[in-house]
Structure formats: structure tokens, C-alpha cells
């Protein structure tokens, strides 16, 4: 049998040309796609899906979008580095240039520039977004002749991967891509490439004008190549113009912006609420059923209190997580996000940030990690750091379970100001508070440590498109799966650990003599390792209205925020001997202080916990990614400390104000 040969294909193109959609189509991958620039900031590699028949193995490399070969931010540097194979590893066999038919002229200039650097024989051109099939065989042949490379028109959203794969396999993939000409870039652009001597492949030009002229020249050439080719259908542009008249309207714009985001929070409550009640009752019922079949003892307690009480308490939030990502994906695909950046730019400017910072912040609503990665698109390092250091203040989806649990239990679902739901409004407030704090801190950083000019803000406004429900479902399904995986691994493991810590050591039997079962459960909990830990920290957390059980939950949540819910779930299940309160919400309402008998959870305590969660950096994965992106522990430590202080201070104020 022949040894299998591998061919690597680099995917290069304009931002928002649909490279990741194309990548997902061919590899069956699930890279995040949306309709605005700068979603892909790192390299993604995968084998092409139908790699079975033993011919050449195809590897596709998805790269961040670039406008030209002169990088102006870190993510663009990643692409240029890969294209020139600056690291000198196994190179690629072909460069696939993905052009955007909606912006064919501008993206063609990039293709021509790449062609000159690596040679016409090393490139192939795919023109994406030809949704109406405007590039017929005659035009295609004409383009191929003019460019001197193969051309395939597609529409990545509804193309068949077979056609594309057949096209790729028909290319000559035998030789490695070599640079045939030195790439000329500016000194500043060189900064965005990895350190080292690249003089064999790159020529640094002192005169910026010369570089600008070169890019200009490629655009002229692109116009020449496209010549009489009919331009894309104007209907989409006209629709975009019409929608923008409202969305970017000086007065309506802000209202539309606020309405869209309020709608998302409201939807999480009103739509996902019933689904959550359902999943909660399923989990409670299954837990009880299993409990009935198990003999009394530690094993039953581990299953019922440790696993169903802990993991189950987190899993019930699956509908909300999926609803959030579903709606965010629809919004991102529509093309609105870039407009939101325009609408909010004035505010961002006041806080010393680039309008571009809006996009990483936006990702932060899902999770801080992609948000932090997305700051790579901000060219100015000072602005980038000011943004990066405040992203974890943006309310991420891991805070959702805590917010929903506490708001759902302690804020009544009444209507306020005529049209707003008090729960959704509280939710909106917490999101607002986090975002506002992020901007204030960013401003402080910009006034002190990261002082300097605000970089330029020119943002692409993509044409609007109808969001694909399929993509939104996929995105939401992917996030749901990640969430369940986390629940089944980390949260499960830690729930068991918490159960062990809160069950052992068993108390001295003498202590339990003559006590009611309820008192016995309370004493056991207090005498356990967790109880000892909790009582040690109680003096610190009592001023913010928390008892030692909540304190333990808070402590555990420094691993990951959802753990708060699972930890208190386990602790309260253990204390609840008659299993009267089935759901975690009921258990919270039933919890009383040991000394006074008053309820532990008042509105003040609930808000104290909520405010604590708004501010504190309780996520080990975020700390790890921060260390990687900033190259050391200094920034993560500073962030952890300032956010911790804000959290404690904020919780203290909230508790004092409300009690």
C-alpha cells in the first residue's frame, strides 16, 4: 500500500469573507462564525471530512482575515506568518484564497498580492457568497485566464462540500508553497510578526508611502482584472441601506440597541423559564426515584445529595445557556453587531477605548476567554491591555446559573414601570453593572498605566443577511454540550469532593445523643472538614451577609462560577433530612441561621451574593488564558486582586443598603 500523502491548504482572505463557514463546511468543524470582522483570531486546523478513500489526506488551515499583506494587528500577523511559513516548519501545498463576491474588487486585490508573493501556481481562488450564481462558466473562464489560477465560485452557506472537495483534489498538490518574491512591509507591521530574522522573505521599507502606493496599485490591478465583469446584485446593498437608516439613525439607534439586548434577557427568563422548570422537575423526580431504591447510608447520600443535589442543580440551567447562545448567534449572523459597535462608539470613546473594543466585550457576554482572545484585533497594545484587563467584568454565561437561581428565587416576577418584568430588569441591571464597571476601570487604566492616544476606528459594516437557524442551533447545541461536559466532569468531580469534605469526619456520637435528626444533620455538617473551613472564613464574610455555607460555595466558585450552585446544592441537600424541599430554590427559602432562626436568604443577602459574582474573577480558565496572552502572571494577579476588592466592597455596600 502506498504511504498516505498529506497536503496542507491555507485559507486566506478578507475579514468576514466566510473563511470559517467554508472551513466548517469542508471539515465538519464547528468554528465560530458570524457576520462581522475579526471572529477568527487564531489558526484552526482540521482534516477534510470525507478523507476515507486513501488518496491524499487534506488538511485545511483556517486563518484570521487580512485586508492586505501588511499586518496591522496581532491576528493579521498570524496569517502573514503562516503564509510565508516564517517558522520554517512543514509548509503548505496550496494557498486557497477566499474572495468575497459582495466585495469582490477589494478582496481580489489581496489575491493578486498573494499571487505575486507565492506565485500563480501556488494559489487557487474560491469566490464565496455568489449566492445567485452570477459567475457563470464564461465569466469563470475569463477570470481564470486573467488571474492565471483556478477559480471556483461558491456560496459557502449552501454549497455542497463534495463539489468543493472535488475542486481541491483536482489541483496540483505535489509541491510545497515557496515564496518567489520578498514581501515588502512597514516597520510597524513587522512588530506584529514573531521575533526573528525574516530578511530572506521580508523586506522592511522605511517609507510608508511606498507601501501604501503598492497596496493602491493592487487595487487598481484588481479593478482592471474584474473590468467589465458585472458587479454583484445591488438588492442586498439597498436593503442594508434601508435597515441602516433606522438602526444607525441618530435617535432611534440607541433605543433599538437597548431594546434588542433587553429582549435577549427577557427571552432567557420567559422562554427558557418553563423549560428550566421542566428539567428541574425531571432531575428531582429521577433523584427521588433512585433514592427510594438505595439503602440508607453514605452511598445513598453521595448519590442523592452529592450528585443529584450538586450536579443536578447546575444541569437545570441548560435551557437558559442554550437560549442565550441561540439568540446571540442569530444576532451575530445578522450583521447587527458591527452597527452596535458604531452606536456605542461614542460611549467607548468617553472611556478612552476604541470602538473596536466593543467586539471583544461582546464576546465576553458568552465567555471571557474568546473575548480576551479577540482583543488581538486591537492594534494599539495599550488599548488592547485596557480592554483585556476589564473583559472578565462582562457578565459571562457561567454567571447565568447563579443569577437565575437567586433572582428567580428572591425577586418577585412582577411588572414594573408598566412593561418591564422585575426579574428581567434585575438581570439587565447586573449585566449593565458589570459592563459599566468594565468601562470605568478601562478608563482608569487608560488615564494611568496604559495612557496614550486612542487608535483609529474604521469599522466594516457587513451587508445584512438573514441569520441561519441551522447555524444558530449548531452554536447553541455546541455550547450546551460544552456545558454538560463541564457538569459531567469538573462539576461532578468537585461535587463528590464537596460531599466527602462535608460528610467526614463524622461527628463524635456523643454530640448527636438526644438530638432530632435535623439537629444531627446540622451538627454533622458543622463538624465536617468543610464546616471547619467555613467557620474559619465566616468572620470575613459575615459583614456581607453570608453564612459559612454560602462562604464555602463562594470559595469553591473560584474554580468555576457554576460550582457555587452545585456546592450549595450538595450542602443544603445534606442538611435537609426530611427531603421536604425538593428543588434548590425551595431549599434556599427554607434555610435559617442556626442562632437566631431567621432566614439566611434575605433580599439583602441575595443581592450581596449577586454583586459579588458581578465583580469577582472566579474562573481558573480565564486566569490561565490571561497568563498565555500577556506572557506572565503579573496581569492575571493584578486583575484577580482588583476584581476581588470590587466584589467584596460591592457586596458590602449592597448588603448594608438593603438590610
Amino acid at each position, binding site marked *: 500500500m502506498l504511504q498516505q500523502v498529506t497536503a496542507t491548504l491555507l485559507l486566506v482572505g478578507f475579514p468576514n469573507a466566510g473563511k470559517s463557514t467554508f472551513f466548517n463546511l469542508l471539515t465538519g468543524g464547528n468554528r465560530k462564525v458570524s457576520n462581522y470582522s475579526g471572529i477568527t483570531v487564531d489558526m484552526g486546523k482540521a482534516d477534510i471530512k470525507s478523507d476515507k478513500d486513501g488518496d491524499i489526506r487534506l488538511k485545511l488551515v483556517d486563518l484570521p482575515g487580512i485586508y492586505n499583506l501588511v499586518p496591522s494587528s496581532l491576528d493579521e500577523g498570524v496569517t502573514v506568518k503562516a503564509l510565508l511559513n516564517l517558522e520554517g516548519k512543514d509548509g503548505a501545498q496550496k494557498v486557497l484564497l477566499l474572495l468575497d463576491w459582495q466585495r469582490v*474588487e477589494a478582496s481580489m486585490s489581496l489575491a493578486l498580492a498573494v499571487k505575486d508573493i507565492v506565485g500563480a501556481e501556488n494559489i487557487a481562488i474560491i469566490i464565496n457568497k455568489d449566492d445567485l450564481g452570477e459567475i457563470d462558466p464564461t465569466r469563470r473562464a475569463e477570470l481564470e485566464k486573467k488571474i492565471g489560477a483556478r477559480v471556483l465560485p461558491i456560496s459557502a452557506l449552501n454549497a455542497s462540500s463534495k463539489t468543493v472537495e472535488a475542486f481541491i483534489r483536482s489541483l496540483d498538490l505535489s509541491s510545497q508553497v515557496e515564496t518567489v518574491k520578498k514581501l515588502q512591509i512597514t516597520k510597524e507591521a513587522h512588530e506584529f510578526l514573531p521575533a526573528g530574522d525574516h530578511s530572506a522573505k521580508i523586506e522592511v521599507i522605511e517609507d510608508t508611502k511606498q507601501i501604501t502606493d503598492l497596496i*493602491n496599485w493592487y487595487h487598481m490591478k484588481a479593478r482592471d482584472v474584474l473590468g467589465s465583469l458585472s*458587479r454583484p446584485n445591488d438588492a442586498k446593498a439597498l436593503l442594508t441601506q434601508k435597515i*441602516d437608516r433606522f438602526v444607525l439613525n441618530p435617535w432611534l439607534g440607541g433605543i433599538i440597541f437597548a431594546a434588542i439586548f433587553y429582549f435577549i434577557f427577557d427571552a432567557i427568563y420567559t422562554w427558557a423559564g418553563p423549560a428550566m422548570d421542566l428539567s428541574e422537575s425531571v432531575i428531582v423526580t429521577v433523584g427521588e426515584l433512585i433514592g427510594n431504591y438505595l439503602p440508607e447510608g453514605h452511598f445513598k447520600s453521595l448519590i442523592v445529595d452529592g450528585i443529584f443535589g450538586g450536579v443536578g442543580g447546575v444541569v437545570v440551567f441548560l435551557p437558559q445557556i442554550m437560549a442565550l447562545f441561540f439568540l446571540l448567534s442569530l444576532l451575530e449572523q445578522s450583521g447587527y453587531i458591527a452597527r452596535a459597535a458604531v452606536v456605542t*462608539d*461614542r460611549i467607548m470613546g468617553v472611556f478612552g477605548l476604541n470602538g473596536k473594543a466593543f467586539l471583544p466585550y461582546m464576546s465576553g457576554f458568552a465567555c471571557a476567554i474568546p473575548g480576551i482572545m479577540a482583543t488581538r484585533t486591537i492594534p494599539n497594545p495599550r488599548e488592547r491591555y485596557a480592554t483585556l484587563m476589564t473583559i472578565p467584568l462582562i457578565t459571562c454565561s457561567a454567571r447565568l446559573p447563579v443569577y437565575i437561581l437567586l433572582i428567580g428565587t428572591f425577586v418577585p416576577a412582577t411588572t414594573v414601570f408598566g412593561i418591564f418584568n422585575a426579574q428581567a430588569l434585575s438581570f439587565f441591571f447586573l449585566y449593565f453593572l458589570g459592563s459599566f464597571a468594565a468601562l470605568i476601570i478601562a478608563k482608569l487604566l487608560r488615564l494611568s498605566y496604559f495612557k496614550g492616544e486612542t487608535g483609529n476606528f474604521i469599522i466594516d459594516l457587513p451587508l445584512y443577511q438573514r441569520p441561519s437557524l441551522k447555524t444558530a442551533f449548531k452554536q447553541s447545541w455546541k455550547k450546551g454540550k460544552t456545558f454538560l461536559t463541564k457538569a459531567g466532569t469538573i462539576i461532578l468531580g468537585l461535587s463528590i469532593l464537596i460531599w466527602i469534605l462535608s460528610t467526614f469526619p463524622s461527628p463524635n456520637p456523643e454530640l448527636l445523643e438526644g438530638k432530632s435528626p435535623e439537629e444531627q444533620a446540622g451538627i454533622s455538617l458543622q463538624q465536617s472538614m468543610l464546616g471547619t473551613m467555613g467557620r474559619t472564613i465566616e468572620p470575613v464574610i459575615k459583614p456581607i451577609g453570608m453564612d459559612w455555607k454560602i462562604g464555602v460555595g463562594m470559595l469553591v466558585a473560584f474554580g468555576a462560577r457554576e460550582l457555587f450552585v452545585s456546592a450549595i446544592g450538595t450542602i443544603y441537600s445534606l442538611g435537609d433530612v426530611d427531603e421536604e424541599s425538593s428543588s434548590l430554590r425551595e431549599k434556599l427559602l427554607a434555610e435559617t441561621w442556626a442562632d437566631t432562626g431567621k432566614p439566611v436568604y434575605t433580599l439583602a443577602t441575595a443581592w450581596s451574593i449577586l454583586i459579588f459574582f458581578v465583580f469577582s474573577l472566579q474562573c481558573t480558565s480565564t486566569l490561565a488564558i490571561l497568563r498565555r496572552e500577556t506572557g506572565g502572571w503579573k496581569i492575571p494577579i493584578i486583575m484577580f486582586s482588583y476584581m476581588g476588592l470590587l466584589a467584596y466592597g460591592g457586596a458590602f455596600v449592597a448588603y448594608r443598603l438593603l438590610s
Partner: protein
Amino acid sequence: MTLNEINVGQTVLLDDFSQSQPVYFKLISLGLLPGDPIIVMGKAPFGGPISIKHGSETFFALRRSEALQIHVKNYASKI
């Protein structure tokens, strides 16, 4: 004339990119060349960004501080 002086709905031509300012670099990256017509689509309130359309396909927005650096001329003065 600079771009920030232009009213919404007006079409103007980009003047020569004589100075090698970063903003021109960015414009050229987007495919806007000297002499190209552009139309001002909107202006955000309180001195917010200006949105621009170029050709039939490129929409973008930029801050007024950037628009101040972009020289334009009347569409008619082309002749």
C-alpha cells in the same frame, strides 16, 4: 474640505492621499482609492461615528477625528 464637513446624503470624491497618514492606509486597505466617490450615509449623535458607503458594496463607519484627516472635493469639481 474634509469629510467631517459633509452632510448626510451628499456624495463627494476622495482627494489625493498625499500625506502618508494611518487613516489613508486603512482606507486603501478597504479598497478606497483617491478620486473614488463616497456617500455619507449617516452621522451618529453627540459627535459619534460617520457611516460611509463606497461603490455598491462597501459600507463602513469611522470616527469624526479620522474624518477630519480625510480630504474630499465636490463631485462636480471632477470635470
